């Protein structure tokens, strides 16, 4: 074996081991790498107890209510299986909308309401002009009515 073949073998083996190691580390840290928990996980008790965490999902349609003070809002976050009621005082991001993605940071209060101190809008990977979005929305409504 020539020296450069030896070095090639060494590099390949080292990279393979490194990759394997990284895979195990990532698997071990899997739960810590999660940016947010889903409402189903909240109900299953898989969230950190007694400390702040984030929940993510869709804002439930027709759930957004503004309190009389004008800055406190309540809405529900859903993953289409479970809903978590969320209360937030502050300015919502521009993209915040019912039926759209949201990530809220805060903690559960004893009544089971998630009190958020930060609300972030999570949006999807679809980019299209407004006319196309309207056409899609019309098609969706027609489909729903026919069902």
């Amino acid at each position, binding site marked *: 074996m020539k020296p450069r073949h030896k070095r090639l073998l060494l590099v390949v083996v080292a990279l393979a081991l490194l990759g394997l190691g990284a895979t195990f580390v990532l698997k071990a840290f899997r739960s810590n790498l999660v940016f947010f928990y889903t409402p189903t996980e909240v109900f299953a008790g898989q969230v950190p107890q007694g400390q702040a965490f984030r929940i993510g999902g869709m804002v439930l349609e027709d759930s957004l209510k503004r309190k009389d003070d004008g800055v406190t809002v309540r809405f529900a976050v859903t993953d289409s299986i479970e809903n978590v009621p969320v209360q937030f005082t502050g300015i919502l991001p521009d993209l915040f909308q019912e039926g759209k993605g949201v990530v809220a940071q805060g903690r559960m209060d004893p009544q089971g309401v998630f009190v958020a101190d930060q609300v972030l809008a999570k949006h999807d*990977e679809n980019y299209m002009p407004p006319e196309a979005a309207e056409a899609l929305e019309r098609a969706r409504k027609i489909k729903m009515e026919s069902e």
Partner: protein
Amino acid sequence: MAVFFFLLASILTVWGLYVGFFVAPTDFQQGESYRIIFIHVPAAWMSMLIYLIMSFWAAIGLIMNTRLSSMMAHALAPTGALMTFIALWTGAFWGRPTWGAWWVWDARLTSELILLFLYIGYMALRASIEDPRRADRASAILALVGIVNVPIIYFSVQWWNTLHQGASVSLTKSPSMATSMLTGMLVMALAFWMYSIAVSLIRVRRIIRDREANAAWLSDSSGVQ
């Protein structure tokens, strides 16, 4: 050669930005702020791709003991760092109005930040070792260790819940964006390619001249350079 690539890069940039700003329609959700993708996405792609190419040259240099391949790796690092920085910077500017935060510690953003540190670490390590051949070997090992980060960046949005949205354009499915938006983005990506090739060629020429200053073949042809 470099001039040719620079020319291509300028033409493609003008074309890509024209499509991006005047032809592509407004987005239905984000309005005008989505137009950051014409810079952000090509820069993010380039940041990962340059790292792969840099590690490839570093590995070849390590295995074959060739000087030129190590110099190629050396020449690519600053451009890769620049692309990573642009991706992070434009992302922050877009994140503030869209998400409501400049920065969040989600897997995509954090791994991209680590990529920036890898580039900076690579350059710092290289600069700190005086003997160029030793610097080649040490930095090559750093580059190769860091390569595990690249698939983490790419797949982070699939593996974990992240605030960053999933890929709109990928090899496995048809793109989920309007055609003219896609055109603008791909033309800009091509422009970034050409720019990276051009500056890397110029930089590697400088590195060769610095490192091989005493070599006979270089002093013979120094007038031709």
